[in-house]
């Protein structure tokens, strides 16, 4: 490090960095105690600690701007040479600020959203635990410590997605009674919690394998140690193990970030309280996967300097991102549940980030793609948190998760309406005034300029996705706020219920984020340049990545100089037209309502089939259930029935249960089961002898 400071042992300067992840955990520990005195105070305590953690995170910002870092280690398990540590480099510093501030706002919102819930203590415990684990991931200086946070995030998401464990009907997701390939497309909170846990666990196991594969060669888990001495990479590469290990690690990110093919848990995770969805989608959980890739990508890219080609890894990342972005956007266009649309959109936008990080590794200008991916992460955190919280208000007021049960709300919820437009424009990438526009444009530019073989198909996919994104966002806003009031709303009003604006503790947080989306959007290009500078210095000093050392020999094609440097005209025009087409389509069907979308879909067998295909989630979810839930259950039952009962106890004809009469115990144990047991015991000895002889 040119300007970095390396410290060993606890010191005053590092305490603020440690505090960022320790404070939320402290909150989690004391919240049950606080609840003994006052249940209502738990929210206040959680918010206070979140604010303290966020302020500690802010103290790291000067570090990021000056390209300094805090690397502080304390002994942990000396017998295997393991240290616990904090690595607050510019990447971690920026990320932990995004996480801390967004989750602080979500906490404020939750005090209103969860008011009066009788399990409030459990809610705050897990929320604080969730944020603490996420910050642990962000600030870890080694894989193993990161994995602790990684598992903590998984555990918290399991507990929070299944928070409403009473499985009431209103807390389910999906449409009751609807089936896909014979399986119900309707999930309870507890089911969804387990689904999220197990699907992400698949990724975790892969990640663990990748981690230890690298450890086996490098003998260290530390991120800095891995870059300082790269002999491990040379050895692994010569045995063709490096790419598999990298892809296994990426498997962890696929699971956490809900990328294809482990994307299906994200939709059912909507059963959690909306504040939890906002936290999962904007600040924690799914961003953890992107962060992991952002942590690793420069490391793998820098290996090019010692002649190791990691193109295959980056191709996998870019393609997984591109496919996910496209796949989930298609489904987002047709679903009637507002939170599900937002969930599809998250997966799709995360796909963009992965795509950018992947393409970065394939291009000459690594820093361009890297900045684009991270910039999109920041802007997505803002507008998606805002959208989710606004959607939560809608659910709260209308009492239904279906957009078809809303409609015409713009006159009653003026603030929510305005903020949702602002944040929605961010998601659509409305030109020049939103962060979403600049970050998406940066991704397009990075992809377009990468000059990789795959650049064109990925670029086209990204572009189609952008059209769809604009369309479904417009559709969402149109269905909720425009048109006539739905039957559901009319009935509510008939019963004397007055549709009203949400309480200030709820609209202020998403208002702030919506305003920021536009506010930073206006100065978006300058913001991007600042970010670009930070990362250029960071990548150069920490990894030795200077612009132009990539694997592709072609020159960058950036045509515009000066202030507009980094804006590619082709990308700019493409993203403008994508916005225009998507918005026009959405406007025709859902805002202007010149045509009825239902009639339109049913008018033509082709549109009908496509609609159904998207609504059934490309049948992927159903296939996964058939292959990994239904079939293995049969298998496990079979194992039990045939292996334990038939093979192990098959020597006696009388079933075990009938022999259990008290008087016949002697008979049962002597002539019944035990004989076969003893027979197997004897056979076992033979087997052991045979095994020893092999």
């Amino acid at each position, binding site marked *: 490090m040119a300007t970095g400071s390396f410290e060993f042992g606890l010191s005053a300067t590092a305490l603020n960095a440690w505090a960022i992840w320790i404070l939320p955990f402290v909150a989690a520990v004391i919240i049950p105690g606080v609840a003994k005195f006052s249940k209502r105070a738990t929210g206040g305590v959680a918010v206070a600690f979140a604010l303290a953690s966020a302020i500690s995170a802010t103290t790291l910002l000067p570090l990021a701007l000056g390209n300094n870092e805090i690397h502080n280690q304390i002994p942990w*398990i000396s*017998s295997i040479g393991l240290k616990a540590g904090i690595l607050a480099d510019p990447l971690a510093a920026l990320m932990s600020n995004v996480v801390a501030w967004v989750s602080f706002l979500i906490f404020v919102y939750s005090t209103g959203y969860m008011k009066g819930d009788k399990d409030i203590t459990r809610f705050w415990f897990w929320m604080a635990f969730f944020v603490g684990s996420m910050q642990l991931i962000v600030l870890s200086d080694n894989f193993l410590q990161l994995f602790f946070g990684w598992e903590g995030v998984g555990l918290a998401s399991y507990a929070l997605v299944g928070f409403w464990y009473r499985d009431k009907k209103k807390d389910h997701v999906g449409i009751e009674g609807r089936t896909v390939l014979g399986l119900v497309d309707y999930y309870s909170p507890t089911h969804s919690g387990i689904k999220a846990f197990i699907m992400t666990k698949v990724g975790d196991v892969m990640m663990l394998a990748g981690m230890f594969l690298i450890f086996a060669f490098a003998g260290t888990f530390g991120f800095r140690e891995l870059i300082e001495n790269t002999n491990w990479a040379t050895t692994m590469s010569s045995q063709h193990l490096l790419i598999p290990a990298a892809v296994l690690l990426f498997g962890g990110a696929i699971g956490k970030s809900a990328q294809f093919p482990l994307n299906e848990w994200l939709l059912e995770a909507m059963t959690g309280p909306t504040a939890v969805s906002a936290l999962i989608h904007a600040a924690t959980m799914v961003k953890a996967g992107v962060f992991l890739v952002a942590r690793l990508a420069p490391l793998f890219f820098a290996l090019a300097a010692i002649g190791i080609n990691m193109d295959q890894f980056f191709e996998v990342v870019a393609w997984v991102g591109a496919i996910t972005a496209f796949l989930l956007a298609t489904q987002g266009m047709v679903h009637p549940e507002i939170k599900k649309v937002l969930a599809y959109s998250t997966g799709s936008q995360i796909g963009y980030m992965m795509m950018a990080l992947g393409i970065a590794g394939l291009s000459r200008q690594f820093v361009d793609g890297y900045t684009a991916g991270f910039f999109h992460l920041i802007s997505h955190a803002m507008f998606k948190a805002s959208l989710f919280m606004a959607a939560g208000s809608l659910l709260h007021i209308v009492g239904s998760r279906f957009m078809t049960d809303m409609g015409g709300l713009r006159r009653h919820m003026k603030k929510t309406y305005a903020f949702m437009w602002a944040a929605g424009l961010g998601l659509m990438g409305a030109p020049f005034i939103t962060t979403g526009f600049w970050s998406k444009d940066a991704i397009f530019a990075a992809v377009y300029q990468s000059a990789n073989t795959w650049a064109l198909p990925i670029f086209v996919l990204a572009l189609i996705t952008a059209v769809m994104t604009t369309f479904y966002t417009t559709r969402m806003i149109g269905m909720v706020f425009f048109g006539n009031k739905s039957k559901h709303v009319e009935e509510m009003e008939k019963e004397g219920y007055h549709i009203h604006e949400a309480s200030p503790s709820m609209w202020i947080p998403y208002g702030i984020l919506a305003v920021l989306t536009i506010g930073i959007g206006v100065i978006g290009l300058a913001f991007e340049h600042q970010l670009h500078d930070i990362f250029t210095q960071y990548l150069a000093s920490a990894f030795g990545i200077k612009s132009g050392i990539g694997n592709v020999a072609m020159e960058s094609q950036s045509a515009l100089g000066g202030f507009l440097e980094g804006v590619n005209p082709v990308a700019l025009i493409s993203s403008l037209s994508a916005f225009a087409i998507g918005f026009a389509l959405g406007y025709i069907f859902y805002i202007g309502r010149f045509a009825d979308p239902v009639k339109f879909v049913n008018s033509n067998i082709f549109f009908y089939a496509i609609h159904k295909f998207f609504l059934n989630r490309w049948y992927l979810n159903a296939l996964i259930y058939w292959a990994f839930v239904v079939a293995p259950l049969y298998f*496990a039952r079979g194992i039990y029935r045939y292996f334990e009962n038939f093979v192990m106890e098959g020597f006696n004809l009388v079933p075990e249960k009938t022999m259990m009469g008290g008087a016949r115990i002697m008979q049962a*144990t002597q002539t019944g089961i035990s004989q076969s047991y003893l027979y197997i*015991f004897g056979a076992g000895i033979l087997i052991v*002898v045979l095994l020893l002889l092999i």
Partner: protein
Amino acid sequence: MIDFTSTPIILTMILGAVGVIIPVISNARKEKGSSLYGGMAFAALIAAITFVGYQIASKHVTPSAIFSKNVLVDDTFGSFFAIAMLIVAIMTTVGSFNYMRGRANPAVYYSLILLSSIGMVLIAYSTDLVMLFVAWELMSIPTYVLAGFMKKDPSSNEAALKYFLFGALASGIIIYGISIAYGLTGSTNIGQVITGFSKLGPDMMPLALLAVAMFIAGFGFKIGLVPFHMWLPDTYEGAPPTISALLAAGTKKAGFAAALRVIIMGAIALDLNWAFALAIIAIVTMTVGNLAAIMQKNLTRMLAYSSISHAGYILIGLSIAPFSQIGLQASLFHILNHAVMKASAFIAVAGIITTLSVSHIDKIKGLGKRMPITSLGLVISLLALAGVPPLNGFWSKLMLFGAAINAGSMVSWGPYLAVAGVLNSALSLAYYGWIIRKMYFEEGESEKRVKEPKSVIAIMIFSIIFIVGIGVYPDPVIEFAKSAVPTLTNVVTIH
């Protein structure tokens, strides 16, 4: 010369004296209350473990023979197991306070637990096959009685009978192995047997091989290795749940102590391809245990199968012992962890059974509200068993699998053990998660809080502190396990 100040002798005297005296007092007292006997047993065990701790702290542990005939040795390996066994015995005793209230013959019950723990401790200290066998029987016979202690309960009787039947067979097989070993080498001292084995001519090899196979089968019965495991679920299910804790966490570990002393050393001397054999048994054991556990509806039976699978994990360390330094350390570490985790899980279940009289998994819905501390203890133990960080089970599994990957540079099948272990751990989450889901995420018939037994609460608090404490800072225990391993390998140097 007998060294009267050495650990095994003192332990035998403390535990033996109290164990013998308890029934005598109960005869003289003619009173029904059980708390006195439980208290005495508890005090004796605490005194014993304190003594072991003192011996270690004051570095009195020296691997030298205690008697003029070299039958017992006072080494760190023995002390490590002594501590593990005594913790289990203490947990069982305290867990039984509530269970035995109002039941018949409490004095005999506690006395038998003490006698059995003498056996468990002595196995770990034995250096002579005959001594080891005597200790083995001293451990086993009281547990046969204990498994069938509820004499009016048919399933308890069946459990005891099956257990005894297999125990007798296994003892016979061990004796057979010992006699072959003696016939071949003219000695029953483990060290001399091993040296003798390594000097055998090729024509005598098959007999030595048979002896090792007999040891694997005989000790494998207690450990619960597949295919010697069939008695185990029936017994654990039928026996009083507190005794299942003793069996799963205690006697099973004593089986490992014996296996470590005898099988590994003997097999090393014989230069057999034994490591591969153990590796296969390890994989089969953990897979069968986990697959069978998934379908169980009874908590104790599920835990029984889970303990079979854990025998498989521990065996990983044994099978890669010659190829990786960490292998045996990891096994020892996991033995201690598993002892506490499994004992605490069984005692939690015992608490549930005595309070609510249910052990079926559908009947524990909403238990998190009814018995919060017991449920929390059970959850922590189950998560530790699954190896979820940051609990102690994570570290020992990490070391086991890490060692297996490490061994990959010496034997090609090493990493496959780690892969099998990781997959099995993921599989095991399915049924542990199922229990947790029933307790916390499903609504029960009643939400009324019931009074939890104080003794169970005490055990739960102890095990939560132990599991989380070691999970956050495992260093001291790993160091202890590390120091226990070399004294074992001193018996015969690994070549």
